[in-house]
């Protein structure tokens, strides 16, 4: 089985999904028309065509076809999955729901999909995959408040589900409630403390909330954001997103610290777990480290050296723009 079938086509980049969907029809026909699948029952026991890759590939092809709009092939994949795992399997129920959501033409049909979800949940309220699809459908039609309520019930029932907390954080962020988003991301980090990308995400969200604050609170928030990015760099060598965030937060911190030289002393209460704000020297050093590392990553990434080719073009361009923007300011 060639490797591309094993990655789910849900990233922001549509190209892998396109290539997967193009290969889907050949895959399904090859699986169905092989001579061994038409043997009578006792002989099929001797032939093993099962493998983990087979069913992962079916699911990924199904998702890719739904994404590009190839509904007949998607239905073939879904039928194969149902034939193997049964209609009442938790995960298969979610996939069936996905198919119905994708092929719904108007609000009426979407309402019917919602009713089907409620029906399933009435019979068995513990099917989390269907709960998640229900929340996703509510968000998709624009009912954000109901989606938030649904997700709150979900995380109440299953507080270690990091994916649900991350989705809740994203929902709160889209509604502008930054404090709640920060709380949810902290819960994600409780469950998965070594997730360097979630540390970076939390740093980004705290930085966003810092821009709405003033004075001592803003300083504290900026310092926390900087610390989050530092932690993400500790967890991952050469993390471009972490260094980018570190550069931005240290830049803003330096401006704020220099602007508030004579200003308010920021109170730090050790009992409440606050840390003292970082000194100007530390922030300057971090800024220099971040700039140097960003320059190195941009240089090596654009040259395409082996071991440095995993950065996307967009990321490298953004990093380059950040460095150039600040050097322009210094030159002027």
């Amino acid at each position: 089985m060639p490797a591309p079938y094993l990655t789910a086509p849900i990233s922001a980049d549509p190209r892998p999904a396109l290539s997967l969907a193009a290969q889907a029809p050949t895959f399904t026909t090859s699986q169905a028309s092989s001579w061994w699948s038409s043997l009578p029952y006792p002989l099929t026991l001797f032939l093993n065509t099962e493998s983990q890759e087979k069913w992962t590939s079916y699911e990924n092809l199904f998702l890719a076809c739904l994404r590009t709009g190839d509904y007949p092939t998607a239905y073939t994949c879904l039928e194969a999955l149902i034939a193997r795992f049964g209609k009442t399997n938790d995960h298969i129920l979610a996939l069936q729901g996905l198919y119905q959501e994708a092929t719904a033409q108007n609000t009426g049909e979407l309402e019917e999909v919602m009713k089907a979800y409620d029906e399933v949940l009435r019979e068995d309220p513990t099917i989390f995959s269907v709960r998640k699809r229900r929340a996703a459908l509510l968000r998709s039609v624009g009912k954000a408040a109901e989606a938030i309520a649904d997700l709150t019930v979900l995380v109440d029932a299953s507080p270690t589900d990091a994916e649900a907390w991350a989705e809740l954080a994203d929902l709160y962020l889209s509604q502008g409630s930054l404090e709640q988003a920060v709380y949810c991301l902290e819960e994600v980090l409780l469950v998965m403390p070594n997730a360097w990308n979630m540390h970076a995400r939390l740093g980004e969200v705290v930085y966003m909330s810092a821009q709405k604050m003033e004075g001592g609170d803003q300083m504290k928030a900026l310092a926390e954001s900087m610390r989050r990015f530092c932690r993400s760099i500790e967890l991952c060598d050469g993390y471009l997103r972490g260094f980018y965030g570190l550069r931005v937060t240290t830049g803003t911190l330096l401006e704020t610290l220099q602007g508030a030289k004579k200003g308010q002393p920021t109170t730090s209460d050790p009992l409440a777990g606050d840390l003292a704000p970082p000194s100007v020297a530390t922030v300057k050093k971090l800024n220099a480290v971040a700039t140097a590392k960003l320059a190195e990553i941009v240089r090596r990434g654009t040259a395409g050296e082996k071991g440095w080719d995993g950065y996307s073009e967009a990321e490298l361009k953004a990093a380059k723009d950040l460095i150039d923007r600040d050097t322009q300011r210094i030159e002027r």
Partner: protein
Amino acid sequence: MAAIATAINVLGVLFLSHAVYSAYEHSLLPSASTPPPLSHSLLPNSLDPKITLPLDITLETLFSVLLLCAGMVLSSADLKPIQWRVWAGTLEASQEAREVKEVGVGGGNPYQALEERVGFWDVRGVGKATRGWMDGGGDKKGKGRA
């Protein structure tokens, strides 16, 4: 490095087989069955072969074993990173580490699932965006991270 290691392994095997065969051939000679000058042996009488071997066969055997040990160590695979940050760094920075060759092996950043969140995938929104992109002409050059 791989070529040198293979060469050392081959030499080691050749020398070992040569030494073993020489020992066998030598043991068939009548002169070999004269008892050795120091006739106390660590082995009990029934297990003692009472054969004298020339020194160079023994040296050749030991030399071939040393060669094989060196060759096996040199031809072994590269050590994988044990520090979390080094491992995470390779996942972020290198394209190879992102490939999935078997289910459960490879696949890049395992925490990327927290940002992609398959369980909550917005199929209608993403589908519409993808079809819009396809209708708008798709992409002209296929560069960048897949």
